């Protein structure tokens, strides 16, 4: 019975198809591993990049002449924000490092307000971060480690 099932037309067609597919897959994998395919890919990538850039430049030019903010303007503003965020991050790290170096006095055992860093993360991440603050306070499981990896 099992033998007749394994040789049914259904199974035979299926096996033949899978065999053909497997051989085609192998042939294509050999094709894409040829050095000439790599060169073709490189040229294609360059052409696509060039065409995309031309299209992007034209779009930016149109927007600029219409006195509208284009992508380049948004990017420039975002980069300025990044630079500010970089400075803020480094400043926060300095502050936290200094705070870690402070001698542990009784006042340090009082519950602390959320750090500036955490508050910032919360403001960025919205309601989820808000629930974190409510449930976790300052967000640490134990007092800050005395040594930091930096």
């Amino acid at each position, binding site marked *: 019975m099992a033998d007749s099932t394994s040789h*049914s*037309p*259904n199974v035979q067609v299926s096996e033949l198809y899978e065999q053909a*597919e497997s051989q*085609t*897959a192998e042939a*294509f*994998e050999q094709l*894409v*591993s040829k*050095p000439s*395919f*790599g*060169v073709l*890919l*490189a*040229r294609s*990538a*360059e052409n*696509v*990049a*060039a065409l*995309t*850039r031309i299209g992007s430049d034209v779009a930016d030019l149109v927007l600029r002449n219409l006195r509208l903010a284009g*992508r380049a303007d948004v*990017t420039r503003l*975002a*980069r300025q*924000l*990044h630079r500010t*965020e*970089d400075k803020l*991050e480094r400043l926060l*790290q300095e502050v*936290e490092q200094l705070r870690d170096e402070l001698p542990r006095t009784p006042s340090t055992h009082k519950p602390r307000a959320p750090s500036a*860093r*955490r508050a*910032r*993360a*919360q403001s*960025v*991440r919205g309601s*989820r*971060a808000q629930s*974190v603050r409510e449930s*976790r306070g300052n*967000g*640490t*499981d*134990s*007092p*800050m*480690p005395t*040594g*930091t*990896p*930096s």
Partner: protein
Amino acid sequence: MSAIGTLARVPAATFELANVILTAADAPIGQTPREVVWTHRGTTLYRYRSDVRQHPVPVLLVFALINRPDIFDLRPGSSFVEFLLGEGFDVFLVDWGVPDEEDADTGLAELVCDELHWAVRETLRAAGEEELTLLGWCMGGTLCAMYCALHPVGAVRNAVLLTTPIDPSNSLYKKWVGHDQFDVDLIADRYRVIPGSGIDWANKLMKPVTNYVTTYRRLFQSILDGSDPRVSFQAMAKWVADNPPYPSRAYREWITWMYKENRLVAGRLRLREQRVDLRRIEQNLLVVTASADHISPPEGTVPILDLVSSEDVTHLDRPGGHIGLIAGSKAKREIWPELADWLLERSGR
């Protein structure tokens, strides 16, 4: 089933196939509850809390710039994060975000020396610990290896590298982008961020028939056979299709340093004037390779085993593909317990 019966099911199965493919983008992935610990630019550090935390050393997960780190937490019941939490680990995840043109100046130095370094610091602060386990997958593993080489002593106790490219000199990528005719500078100059769809297309082109035909034929076959592959297929399909752009500087440096000049394994890669010498790695090291990995073949990973100075080095080579080994249907039964056992022995005080 008879041939006539099979034929009769074809229209319904075709309709179902179309539905599964068209609604894949709506599949929920990354469902495990998490908290934002820290953000900088587009990078976010998340924390997943374990209800049964048993091990003091937290695990920090790092994925590649290609695709999103949701693969660590694909779907309930098939989530590596969920598994680690169940094993009692405190889990953190670095999410590189979705770069845009303003991130064009983000290079490997920024990723390793700033974002990853700060994420490590914030992980330790949040966990209240002094050491952690750094677990990197694919390019994320390479970034972790670079970090460990720059910081051999200190925060990282254990390093786990999953299907990580270290010496890609024999890879297919090398044939595609390692030759002189591939002008990486031209591409990087013209795109401020390299479109993720382009990189995804190139990745799929490595096995074109398998990716563009076999996957869908198998899906159709399983629907025709009466099984319900919707949940598993859609979660993976959604993750595969989510390709963030790649900052052009990181792209230029990755292609040039790894594929054109192969600097990492030769010890000639420098980040912020510091030489990244893999021989300086002293952490407990677990290297996992997948025998059928065509993106990061085992022979491109194992050279690290001979380079590092670590006294505790383990290598697991298991059957599977680049992603399937860790996120496939068998992973939960096979590789995850092995990873957890290795971590468990090295995560005490």
